[in-house]
Structure formats: C-alpha cells, structure tokens
C-alpha cells in the first residue's frame, strides 16, 4: 500500500538538491571569467583553455588512464577467478584465509592499504612508479570485481554448466561457452567499477606513486589544498560530464537489452 505524500515529495526534492547542488555550482563557476572563484564576472571558457595548455595536468591524465586501463583489466581477470573459486571450487585447504583476504580490502582503510603496499615495495626494492600503482590498484579493485561477479555466479543455474560438461565440453570450454556469456554483464560492470575506483583513488596512489608518475587525483589534491582554483573547476566539470554521459547511456543500453529480452521471451512463448 503506497501513498506518495507531500512529505515524501519534500524529502526527495530536498535530498536530491543536497546531492546535486554542490556539483551544479561547481559546473557553473567553471565558466566564470574571474580568477576570484567567488565573484561572478561573466561567462567565459578561459579556464578550459588554460587547462588544455597545462602539460602537467595532461601528463597526469595520461598516467591515470594507463594505470586505470591496465589495473582494471588485471583486476577483472583476477577478481573473476577469485569469484569462481569462492562459489564453484568447493572446499580446499586455506579457503577461510582466501575468503578473508578477498573481502578484507573492501573494509580496509585506504591509508593502511597504501602504507602496507609501500612498505612491501620498499622491502623488495621495487622502484616506485607506474608499475607499483598498477599493482596496488589491481589488488584493491579485484576484490570489488569478485563481489560483483560472485553475486551473479550465485544466482545462475548450475545445471547449465553441468549439461555442457555432460555433453563432452572440457571444464574450460564449459566456462568459455556457457558461464562466461551468462556472467558477462557482471564482468563488464566489475571492470567499470575497477576502472572508476582506479581513476578516483588518491590515498593509495599517493603512497605508491614515485616522483615521475603523478596521477590526476594527486595533482588535483595538491592544487586544491591551497584553496579553490578555477582550473580545477573546469577539470571537475569535464570529469562530471564524462561520468554523467557514461552512466546515463549505460542505463539506457541495459534498459533496451531488458526490453529486447522480454520481447524475445514473449515471441518464444508464442511459437
């Protein structure tokens, strides 16, 4: 029994104003002509131009993208394997330790993950740089991938895999031809999640980055520590728009896929 009252409407309106107003203000002020961030001096795209000419930011953006793509791909492979082990491999020695290790990074404070990985890299004498950031990001984001993929693995019908095995497929073929296509949406969202986490991460990257491998969040953080800057407003606006377009189009695509599947199911019932 649902009744949408004026109280519900107010709560939703105020809630979404609170969630979105700060970002809207940020976007508006990125088009401010004045260097003084709190004084509105007319519309201008000046800061976008300055941002494009700022090589340090462009370099950092490139490092961030490289780290993001490599680490999220590694994390997706490892995380999917981890999820498969958790749900399908049955009992093996050290399973408790394994499940502990796969969920612990989710609740581990970033400062501790960063510190411990840095101490490891120093201990084994690995120079800090892009490789160490990739290793660190892969480790913490593979756990998020595992969670996403295992929730999909739990819910799917195991007899499909068994049927493939009975019909003579090798376990690897059964995985590639049956399991993988079914869990593919979860694997893709796992990759996207890992990629976003990597692009977003400041703390772990600060611990594991070397002087030659500054990522975008590190750059942003050191710039905004001193106060609000119009260039960062412009950069934030670009990042917010990419995410917004991405999330909206992803949800449209998945909605279309769902509609199509329903139609196919209906057609299958009719025939």
């Amino acid at each position, binding site marked *: 029994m649902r009744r949408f009252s004026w109280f519900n409407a107010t709560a939703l309106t105020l*809630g979404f104003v609170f969630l979105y107003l700060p970002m809207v203000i940020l976007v508006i002020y990125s088009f401010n002509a004045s260097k003084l961030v709190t004084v509105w001096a007319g519309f201008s795209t000046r800061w976008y131009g300055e941002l494009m000419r700022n090589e340090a930011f462009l370099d950092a953006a490139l490092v961030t993208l490289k780290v993001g793509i490599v680490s999220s791909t590694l994390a997706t492979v490892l995380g999917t394997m981890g999820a498969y082990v958790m749900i399908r491999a049955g009992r093996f020695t050290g399973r408790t330790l394994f499940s502990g290790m796969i969920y612990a990074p989710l609740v581990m404070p970033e400062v501790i993950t960063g510190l411990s990985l840095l101490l490891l890299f120093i201990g084994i004498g690995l120079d800090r740089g892009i490789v160490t950031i990739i290793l660190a990001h892969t480790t913490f984001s593979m756990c998020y991938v595992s969670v996403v993929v295992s929730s999909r693995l739990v819910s799917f019908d195991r007899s499909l895999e068994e049927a493939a095995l009975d019909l003579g497929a090798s376990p690897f073929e059964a995985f590639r031809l049956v399991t993988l296509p079914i869990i593919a949406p979860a694997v893709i969202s796992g990759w996207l999640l890992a990629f976003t986490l990597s692009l977003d991460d400041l703390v772990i990257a600060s611990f594991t980055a070397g002087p030659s491998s500054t990522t975008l969040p590190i750059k942003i953080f050191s710039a905004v520590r001193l106060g609000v800057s119009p260039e960062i407003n412009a950069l934030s606006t670009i990042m917010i728009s990419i*995410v917004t377009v991405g999330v909206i189009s992803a949800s449209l695509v998945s909605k279309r896929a769902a509609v199509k599947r329903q139609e196919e199911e209906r057609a299958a019932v009719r025939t």
Partner: protein
Amino acid sequence: MRRLILIAVPYLWLLAFFLVPFLIVLKIALSDYNLSIPPYAPQLDLSQGWQGIKDFFGDLDFENFTFLTTDDLYWKAYLSSLKIALISTFITLLVGYPIAYGMAQAPDEWRPTLMMLVILPFWTSFLIRVYSWMGILSNEGLLNKLLLSLGIIDQPLIILSTNTAVYIGIVYTYLPFMILPIYAALEKLDGSLLEAAEDLGCSRLSAFWLVTFPLSRSGMVAGCFLVFIPALGEFVIPSLLGGSSTLMIGKVLWEEFFSNRDWPVASAVAVVLLLILVIPIVLFQRNQQRQQEADR
C-alpha cells in the same frame, strides 16, 4: 590441475599484495625508529644464520604502542575520529532515511530514475565531491554570501576548516551508502502488513512506527556500518574541509609517515586503527548473514 591454477593465481596474488604487506606493517610497528635507510631497525640479517634471526626477534618490542598511549595526540585522535564518525553516521541516517522512504513510496515508473540519481554520485570522483564544498563553505563562499545578503547574519560564519565542515563532507559523500540499503529493505516490505495495521485501528503515523520502521532495521544497520567504517579512517575529508584542530586518525597516520617520516609509529597507528575496526566489521558481517538467512 586446472583447478589448482585457478585457485593458486588469485590466492598467491592476495598473499603477496595483501597479507605479506600487512605482516610487514606489523613487523615495522614492533621495530624502532632509526636514522638510516630504511628508517627502522632491526633488519633481518640472514647472513648471520640462526643467531641473526634470534637477534632480530629479540629486538622487536611494543615500544611504539606504549608511545601511542603516552603521547595524548594519538589517543585524542582515535577518540575524535570515533566521535566524528559516530555523529556523522547518525546525521547521515537522519538525512538518508526520509529520502529512502520517499523513494520506496514513489510510483513504480519513477524508480529507475530515482535509483540512477542516487547511484550517479557513486561514479563521480570522491575528491571532486569533497572539493565542491570548499567553494560553498569558505568565508567568502556562496553560503556566507547568501546568508549575508538575506540579512540572516552580519558576520561571515567560519565553517570551512572546522569540524562542522567535516560533518557536512562525510554526510554528503556517504549519503548514497545509507540510502541504498534502507531503500532495499523498505522496498521488500509487504504492503498488506500496513493495511492490516490500519484496519486494526492504527493511525498512519503509528503504523509507520510500529511496522515500517522496525522492519527496515536491518537496512538501517547495514547503512550505518557502510558509513561508519570508511568514515573512521577517512583522510581526504578532514584534510580538505577540516582545519588544523581537526584530529582524525587517517590524517595523523599520513602526517606521521610523510612529514615526520617515522615509519614505526605510523605502522603502530595503522595496527591500532585496524584493531578498532575489527569490532564494527564483525558486527556488520553478522548483520549481513542474519539478513541473508531471513531472505531465504
């Protein structure tokens, strides 16, 4: 054989990059600060054979942990982190519950859009969302300008660089973590229970208090842990929105490591933080398990 490889690859990766690093932190927490590279002692010297190993373990002690208890910076930082995390979790619950409730009451065709509006901030950079408040809360910021022009205040309020700004930052960034589990619990609620309550003479408000609210308890508990656990070790929010008087343990650890370069103390701070976190994490796991069993 294939099964072995499948298990071994992620297993070894986690051992190497999760468990071993943590053991190193534990070891360094028990070592002493030393002016050398790396800046701690003792080092494990395997060339000395058995004697080296014995000396190594003999030199480990709990000095750094005693140091943490004697210098009041640390226990004050732990207490103030706990306080900030608790209060902001409570405010997030107060703000998040009506939103989740509104979502659950909304017409079906709105729901996908409402869900997307709650999830969208998840995908937006955390750093940028925290940063967006700096321009609003500063002394010449938009909030002060608005209040001054409305004549509500005649002196700018000092909000940025205080604990108030930290509360606002935590509530803002973690709000989706609170809304989603509460919404999930409310959505599953069987509407006929409310009808029954009202047929038996409950007013709408008392039906809410006696039926809806208790049945959304597990969602609230999950949401509170999802906010409290990360808020406790938070670094970005206190360092951007908080001031020099804002003591949070994540910030202390960072400064101990990067500014003072005292690795053993930084490691000891990390170990104690983790010990504090074990309690809420175990409670959270229990809540989730009970929830899963109830769903079955």
